[in-house]
């Protein structure tokens, strides 16, 4: 059975994505890290589906794909706006909404 190592791999990928998200200041890299995390989640679903022989895992993968597409289209639009307004991609520079 490959599902246990696959789940392990998903965990590691998720961790890497999280590390990237938290450590990189460039907003583009943060988005890439988000993509990695989404992929890790998708992998976990696929592995679960394979483990139980169910199709639900693949269906969830489809939904994640949809989510990622929607998220990326909006997020990249925001990135373009931010870079246009602030002339930088530094995420810490966009902190005007502090409480």
């Amino acid at each position, binding site marked *: 059975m490959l599902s246990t190592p696959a789940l392990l791999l998903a965990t590691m990928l998720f961790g890497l994505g999280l590390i990237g*998200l*938290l450590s990189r200041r460039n*907003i583009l890299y943060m988005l890439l890290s988000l993509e990695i995390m989404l992929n890790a989640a998708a992998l976990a679903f696929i592995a679960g589906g394979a483990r139980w022989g169910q199709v639900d895992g693949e269906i969830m993968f489809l939904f994640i794909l949809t989510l990622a597409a929607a998220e990326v289209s909006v997020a990249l639009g925001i990135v373009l706006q931010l870079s246009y307004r602030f002339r930088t991609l530094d*995420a*810490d520079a*966009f902190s*005007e*909404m*502090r*409480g």
Partner: protein
Amino acid sequence: MMNLLWLIPILPLAGFLILALHGEHLSRRLVAWVGCGSVGMSACITALVGVEFFHGLPDRASYQQTMWNWIDTSEMTVGLSWHLDALSFLMVAVITGIGFLIHLYSTEYLSDDDGYARFFAYMNLFVSAMLTLVLADNLLLLYLGWEGVGLCSYLLIGFWYHKPEYGTAAQKAFIVTRIGDTAFAVGLFIIFTQLKTLSIQQVQTLAVEAWPVGSNIAMIVAVLLLIGAVGKSAQLPLQVWLPDAMAGPTPVSALIHAATMVTAGVYLIARMHDLFALAPLVQGIVAVVGLLTLLLAASSALVQHDIKRVLAYSTMSQIGYMFLALGVGAWSAALFHFLTHSCFKALLFLAAGSVIHSLHHEQDIFRMGGLRRQLPWTFWTFLIGAAAMSGVPLITAGFYSKDWILWSVWSSPLSQQWMWVGALLGAFLTGLYSFRLIFRVFFGEVRTAAHGEPGLAMRVPLVVLAGLSLSVGFLEIPHTLGGLSLFGPYLSQVLPTMEVRPGMDDSSEAFEQIAVTCSALLGIGLAAFFFLPRVSVVDRLVGTAVGRFFVPFWQGGWGFDRLYERAFIQPWFALTRDAGEFLDRGYGVLVTGAEFCHVRLSRTQTGHIRWYAATIAVGTLMLLGLFAL
């Protein structure tokens, strides 16, 4: 033709929408056409439907039409569906017919008012809501109409809202009827939880199957519905709003009193008659409430100064008769009185409106007098209305309906003898106060000069209603006087006929009728004796010690306003004032606490997206840890 039924409530609604959205841009003539025309077309369609209804009556007693499903869940289906049977057709015919006449009258009565379009918009909505109420197939739709009627009465009573006391009167009407509405809503909840349906037909059949006669649940539901009916119909103890409701323009009063609003309670009880039959005790209460209200209102009507207040109290009194009849199981008699009452009460209000119009909004009857010569049309129609209300025998409609009620009270197995005596006293008082009004306003010396008779648009409704007030009584003539029974058999499709107590025969009925006739004529005669002479006998009577006590007491409607003021309003205000300080301090603590937390929490809002991501991750980890434990 039957499938046009849905247009009857929708047309006035369409009129309302047109006038409410575009009324300000339309000319007065167009507003009058839309406002009047929508109700008039409804009346025409009612006539068309009626033709087919009467042709098809032997085959089916009711007609159902569903427009669409309003609410549709697995456990509850509420359709926007109309139900036409003999009872609702009677109501619809009265509402559209008399409603149309009142609209026609208003086109002239309010011709120089600024809120012309607004007035007709509200009136149309009022008629539409009332039609929804009576045509509703289920209790929820009925409740929609019920609330719509309440809303419109508020809007119309406060129509001249720039006078603060009129606004207060409108609020009073709204709040007092709201008490009844709340009870009614609770009743609906109980019905739904118990019977899983709100359809009127199903509720009745299921209730008869599920609840034994006199069971607690039937009693509770019947009492709650009764409170609702009492609130809308201005019966004891929720009657205080009706006299103040005179703040609205006179056609509004006519509409509220004759065709809509106050008759809703009568309709509700008649509609749910099977339910009330399951709770004999509550039905007894209905009778007692009706009797008490009719005596209270009749005595109050005797001493009022305002012409419209007299009529308002008279309405309460006549609705009391209807409740009395419902309470003793004489359903058809109650509805017959509703029919005649709508005719003569609309007539009386419109005629009173004509008087007020001619006297430049003078409403005090002590400043009127001798108008007989100046306003002959108004005088004769008013006279017919007053005669019908007091039940002048043989020629007026009121005689036949009131006689039927009194005969039912006399002969019903559900009633007591003292109820009949009380109702007889009420008939006497009715004659007295009706003709007090006639003699004060139209006889004696001229106190305020009138500026001429009203125009055609006001005169036509008066004449038509006068004709109706004389003629509709012939639908049901007691068999001691020839015996023609059209109304009772017509309603027997939907309402059970009353059984007569054994030992009641023609001779006792004749005796009873003579007693009723005598008491009414005695009242009229006494009114002539009191109020016709130049030196009024009644002034001396008022001056005595007994009079000094009773007159202010009756003028205030038996002191209910003051009682409620003392018992509810003042304690409530006192509570809000004193306890307000204490409660405010509680809220103060809340405010400081919220501010304290806000300061702390807003520090976490760094605006750094990575900080947010980290907190989300930490939170997720903590939750995961929690689950793992």
